[in-house]
Each structure stands twice: as C-alpha cells, then as structure tokens.
C-alpha cells in the first residue's frame, strides 16, 4: 500500500549544518497491518513517519501511496491526502488547550465541510468505543494523560482514515495504560486499518498486536 524507494531526507541542505536524517530507504508496507519502527534516538524514525504521512517531502526518492506517486505533489494535494487517509497520534498528544474534548476531536473534520451534527455524532460514537463519553465536554487540560491520549486517538479517527500514524504513542503512559493502548491497536487491525508506529518500548514492539518490526539506525534500515 505504501512504497518507499531510495528515500533520502536532508535538513538544512546546502548550509553548514546540513544533516542527512535518512540515507536511502527502500520499504514496502502492507495494508491492514501494524508496523513498528524501532531504533536508537536520532535514527530517523520520526522523519520517516512525517514523509509517509505527507507532513513533509523527501529530498530525493519516491513515496507511493496506493500506487500513486505523492512525493512530488504540491502542498494543497498533500494536505488533502493527509486529511483523508492519515490519522495522527502524536507523542505529546498535541491537543488544543482551552477547547473541550469533543471540540478537539472534530477539528480535522472542519476543512471537509461535513455538517457539524454529523461530526459530533461520529465523535460521540468514537468516544463510546474508547469509553470516554463521560469526559467529552471536559476541557482537555483537565484530562489525565490516558484520557488525553484517547482524545488524541479519537481525533485521529474522526475522518475515518485508512492509515494511523503514531509516534511514540506510549512514551507518556504507564504500563497499564500502554496495555490498554495495545488493545485499541488490535481494534484498529480488526477494523482493517493500517498502523505505523515508532517505539522504544519493548511492551509495544514485542506485543502480539504488532505484525512487523523494522529496525533503524543512522537513517538506514537494519534487521530488527
């Protein structure tokens, strides 16, 4: 479903602090599976996820999504693909403070022009699944870490994306909450979604919910 060929990514290219975060990645990712990236800090995992998730463009190489080359598309189209096909769960959750849980969740639906009632209904349904309905009108800064993460997950799901991208999803969670997250992951697989995640956490990468583990080091793939 996602094919990467000869992906290289440089930061500050042409300047004295030029840094190559990715050095030629070839990778094919299957639909409907959970893939985890593991590697030391600075190995380029996050950078790879931003390329796949249309948050940035590779310096060279191609990214194909469902057969279509998306590495050369203008920003407008990238944004549209990102909105329709990818849901993001960030390490810091990145919720908008001051808004309620449900207001945060429906945000990705705004540019689609879906009626508000429909968005709210969809959000309520996701909250139901994540057992968060009782907190839906609470301001996000009052929520616990686990609740915040579930709000972030709900937000990633609101546009019903095919791919979920999670960067260090359990870094801010304790063991019990991490287990809960893995259970939610299994639910994604059951729903036929593709999941890409990065993690240092053995609990995650050694879990049964993860189908494939890919190792990284210094911007290259290594055997896990």
């Amino acid at each position, binding site marked *: 479903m996602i094919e990467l060929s000869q992906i290289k990514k440089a930061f500050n290219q042409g300047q004295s602090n030029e840094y190559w975060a990715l050095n030629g990645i070839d990778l094919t990712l299957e639909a409907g599976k959970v893939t985890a990236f593991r590697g030391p800090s600075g190995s380029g995992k996050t950078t790879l996820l931003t390329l796949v998730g249309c948050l940035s463009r590779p310096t060279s190489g191609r990214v194909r999504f469902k057969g279509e080359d998306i590495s050369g598309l203008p920003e407008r189209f990238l944004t549209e693909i990102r909105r329709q096909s990818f849901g993001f769960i960030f390490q810091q959750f990145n919720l908008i403070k001051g808004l309620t849980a*449900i207001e945060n969740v429906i945000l990705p639906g705004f540019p689609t022009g879906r009626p*508000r009632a429909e968005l*709210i209904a969809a959000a309520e349904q996701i909250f139901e699944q994540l057992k968060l309905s009782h907190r839906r*009108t609470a301001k996000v800064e009052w929520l616990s870490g686990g609740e915040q993460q579930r709000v972030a997950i709900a937000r990633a799901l609101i546009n019903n994306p095919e791919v979920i991208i999670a960067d260090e999803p359990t870094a801010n969670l304790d063991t019990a909450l991490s287990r809960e997250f893995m259970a939610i992951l299994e639910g994604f697989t059951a729903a036929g979604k593709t999941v890409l995640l990065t993690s240092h956490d053995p609990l995650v990468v050694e879990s049964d919910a993860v189908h494939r583990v890919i190792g990284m080091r210094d911007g290259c793939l290594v055997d896990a």
Partner: protein
Amino acid sequence: MRRPSTLAFILLMVMSLGVIAIFAHSWQLTVTDQSRLQANRTLVTQLGLTDLALFSESRYTRHPSQADLHSALQDHPGAFDHFPTGSLISPPAHLTKTHERLAGKTTSPD
C-alpha cells in the same frame, strides 16, 4: 450543544438590522422635526440671525460668520487663544479668501 457561529450570526444580524433601522429612521424626517426646522428658519429670517448660538464665550465664536478679519490680536479668528472652542472651529474660509475675491476690484487697499 449550541453552536457559537449561530449566536454570532444572530448577534450580527440584530445589530445590522439596528443599523438599517437607523438609516431608515434618519431618511424619514418626522413631522415634528420638519416643523421645528421650518420654525427655526422662520425665526432666522425674522430676526436676521446669522449664526448658531453654540459658543457664547467670545465674539468670534458667538458669531463666527461675522468675525472681523481686520481686528488685530485677540479678536482675530486665527489667533491663538485660551478658549477651548477657539480650537474647535477654524477661521471661516471666506475670511482668507476675501483678498482674492476683491483683489483689484476695490479702490481702497483691502
């Protein structure tokens, strides 16, 4: 859950209607306003008034249109003064134009 944009629309709508009402209201002179204006014009004609009685603290603000170009010092309409209203109204335009209008037409120096 009440939608914030709906509230904003209602608020803006009400205020816009207010402004439209203001326009409508000001275009339509009431009978009392009209008769008052007419009565005042009649008074002006009858008494030969030339000015509004808005500022009565000095001669050139009580009767700015009759103010006297030639008087020096404090009577000059452009004079710097200590009356607040003196800085609210400037010398009437015709005072500074008189020279131009009558230039060469009078036998005496203007």
